[in-house]
């Protein structure tokens, strides 16, 4: 994309010279570094409940965030008004973090490198609404048709199209056009007069609308949600205490996100209060485990062409054969720790300060047959779907909540078990991984990660794995 083609040039008449002058304003008090993050965001959403399309909404938001760094300090201001005087004012406010004479007065902005991971010609946000409304209606019909015990269905579709432009005092200017779409379906099942049970499923990515019209139709998510709800009707109490846990492939990779991913974000490690601080080169998992964070996988929800500081994303090995290799770095942490950025600087919007974040975090595939893994367990549980998770960075304790799991008895799956939270300690949990399957799968594309009040889309993935010991929070 050329500067002149960007929405910021065409709609707001922003020129390269403007960017240079605002950067100069931001550094007028002597900051070491400044950047401008422009965002123009179009969103749409449609929700269906009780077979009625109850809500359809669309919106526009825009703004610019100005950041100034001096040493380890950050000054930040933003404006949701893209007029030159408001942008200049924000730059002046952010500049106040520093106190000294201006160091630089000239910039020569050059366009920075980026990937082309989502070459979507027409973003879902740019299509006719009627087609998207049809998706939620189809999901509703499919979930109800799955089983007569399904009595409530909600389906939700949302997409957005985000245009960003990042100009830095290092001399880089980067543009990106970031499409995103997601569907989710939840279903409730009831048998006779018994209590209801819920099932949920969804998927999406940085894709065009064809994604939902071909390989990932609404029926796929709908039947999956309905299936989970029906399965749970027969659920028994989950075990309480330490047991062997087998995780199925895909979304259970949330284990990695919580157990190791957050603890390896460089801001926590720069400041020395992560359970992983100072452990590079140490063994933190069994040698079967290699964990990667990769922002460059085409069309994935967690991928971006450039991070929100203008760095091209990359594939970062976090744990290699059980040994801790590296942290996820943004600009500030990497300059303090004197390494390079790993393309992990992300932010929720122009109103937020970037920080190191995950993209798509997964474990590399192994050699075991997934069936052999289940057969190897005399007594334990097999978890195939999860709700959310959380971690205490400092102690390393993490949880994630199983929403669909089964008892394993004598190597066979027997009964489904009720929702239970699994708890472990980050630097210890993966040491008990004794088998890794040959069936690596990435999740369907619905993950959102929250950190310090900022949400960003992420992906996870994992092959089937066996963890010899983990605490399961049931009642039986």
């Amino acid at each position: 994309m050329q500067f002149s083609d960007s929405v910021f040039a065409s709609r707001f008449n922003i020129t390269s010279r403007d960017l240079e002058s605002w950067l100069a304003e931001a550094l007028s008090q002597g900051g070491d570094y400044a950047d401008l993050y422009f965002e123009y965001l179009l969103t749409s959403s449609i929700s269906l409940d009780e077979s009625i399309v109850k809500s359809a909404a669309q919106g526009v938001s825009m703004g610019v965030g100005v950041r100034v760094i001096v040493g380890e300090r950050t000054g930040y201001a933003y404006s949701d008004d893209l007029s030159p005087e408001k942008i200049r004012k924000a730059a002046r406010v952010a500049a106040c973090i520093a106190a000294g004479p201006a160091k630089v007065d000239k910039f020569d902005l050059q366009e920075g490198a980026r990937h082309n991971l989502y070459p979507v010609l027409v973003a879902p946000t740019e299509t006719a609404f009627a087609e998207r409304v049809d998706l939620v209606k189809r999901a509703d019909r499919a979930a109800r048709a799955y089983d007569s015990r399904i009595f409530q269905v909600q389906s939700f579709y949302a997409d957005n199209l985000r245009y960003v432009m990042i100009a830095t005092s290092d001399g880089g200017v980067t543009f990106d056009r970031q499409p995103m779409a997601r569907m989710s379906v939840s279903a409730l099942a009831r048998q006779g007069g018994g209590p209801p049970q819920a099932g949920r499923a969804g998927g999406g990515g940085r894709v065009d609308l064809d994604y939902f019209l071909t390989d990932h139709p609404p029926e796929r998510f709908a039947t999956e949600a309905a299936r989970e709800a029906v399965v749970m009707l027969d659920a028994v109490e989950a075990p309480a205490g330490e047991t062997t846990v087998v995780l199925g492939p895909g979304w259970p990779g949330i284990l990695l996100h919580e157990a190791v991913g957050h603890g390896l974000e460089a801001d926590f490690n720069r400041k020395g209060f992560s359970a992983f601080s100072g452990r590079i080169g140490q063994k933190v998992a069994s040698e079967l485990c290699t964990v990667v964070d990769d922002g460059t996988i085409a069309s994935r929800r967690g991928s971006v062409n450039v991070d929100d500081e203008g760095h091209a994303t990359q594939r970062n090995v976090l744990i290699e054969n059980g040994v801790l290799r590296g942290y996820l770095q943004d600009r500030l942490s990497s300059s303090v720790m004197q390494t390079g950025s790993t393309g992990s600087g992300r932010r929720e919007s122009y109103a937020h300060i970037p920080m190191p974040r995950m993209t798509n975090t997964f474990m590399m595939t192994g050699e075991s047959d997934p069936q052999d893994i289940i057969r190897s367990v005399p007594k334990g549980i097999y978890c195939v779907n999860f709700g959310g998770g959380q971690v205490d960075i400092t102690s390393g304790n993490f949880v994630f909540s199983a929403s669909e799991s089964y008892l394993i008895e004598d190597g066979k799956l027997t009964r489904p078990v009720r929702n239970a939270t699994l708890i472990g300690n980050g630097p210890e949990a993966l040491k008990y991984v004794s088998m890794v399957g040959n069936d690596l799968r990435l999740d369907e594309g619905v993950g959102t990660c929250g950190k310090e009040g900022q949400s960003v889309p992420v992906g996870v993935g994992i092959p089937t794995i066996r963890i010899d010991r983990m605490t399961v929070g049931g009642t039986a």
Partner: protein
Amino acid sequence: MNGDCLGELARGVVQRALAAGATDAECTIAEGDEFSANVRMKEIESIKEAGSRAAGLRILIGRKTGSSYTSDFSSEGIALLLKSAIELAEVTTEDPHAGLPDPDELGSIEGDLRLYSPDVEQLETPVRIETARRAEAAALEADPRIVNSEGASFDSHVGRHIFANSRGFFGEYRASYCSVAVAPVAKDGDSMERDHWYTLARGFSGLEPPESVGRTAAQRALRRLHPVKVETQRVPVVFESTVARSLLDNLFEAVHGMSIYRHESFLAGKLGEKVASDSLTVVDDGTLPGLFGAQPFDDEGVPSRRTVVIDRGVLKSYLLNSYAARKLGMKTTGNASRGLTGNAGIGHGNFFVEAGVQTPESILAGVSNGFYVTELMGFGVNVVTGDYSRGAAGLWIRGGELAFPVSEVTIAGNLKDMLLGLDAIGSDLEFRGATAAPTLKIGEMTVAGK
């Protein structure tokens, strides 16, 4: 644009929507200024300062709804706001229950709710930074084992909320808040633990002294050092007031009008029945001045009120907006809540457990072997079934006293049994936000550990 102009804009958008074919319309405008300063290891880490505003519109054409929002207040932006909402009403389905509250339900409560305090805006930046610095310094100086810190923050927000609808309602109010939070890290040998403490108020003068916030945070982190993972067992569980609040979040979801009409709550259909121990009374009150759940009217223009949700163990009311009320054949409880766009959801006002008579100490004194929970982790609560399973940390109770720290365990049960099994309610009710609960004791839950 000043406040009067924004009010005119909201009314104008409603009128223009009607002129464009809407049969009803609601317009919300929010504007605000935020400030945030972070201090870490006695140095300024970041300062953030900005103002923003946005408008949302929801229209009905008959029983079909369309919504839109924008942060672009130019004439083009407002024209698009109107066009989007009208266009979307074409694609939604006729919903027999869609609509606005009846005109006689609309209104605003009288009197000053003390939501706005001018001292927040007037505060000089150096004072804000210094307040955070003092809180962190007190934490760092509290004990030699406090060796690190996630930092301390001072945050404030001053905003204006405007709402107009096509049934003649217009209302606006200003609100402010400020807070100080600090998160120290304690270390001793191999053990490293963090915790935090905070104070928040509508005005600067309402904040607790930063030193006391810092010292409390330090004590909370220190008492977690060298935790033990206990054996799996069934024992009495005492929730410190800080985490007892989270049970109210779960209860809120269970009495949420939408969960009720969808039958996705374990409390659906239980109105008038005994659902909790006789000692439990839970109230939602959006009219308590100065508190964080107070507002003169809800997000549909219905006056805030006091609703007794559970009265001495008996379920008395759900929390409803006008839509859920129409679905259930009831009246709105003035609990409509929404962002800028979409249909109104449901929110709570000041949602709290009425204080009991026992001090927290006397509750602990009655437990020979049990778990005092001070932190909960994760999202393992299913309000459809009531199944409850969460990560927990805290202190073990031995012979009526706090004996040693515990972590990496879970507590599990079912909310139905937990509510009925509440056998002690503390006298220590204190509002730190819109939900509040005193110390609560549940007769027995499963603690899963080793």
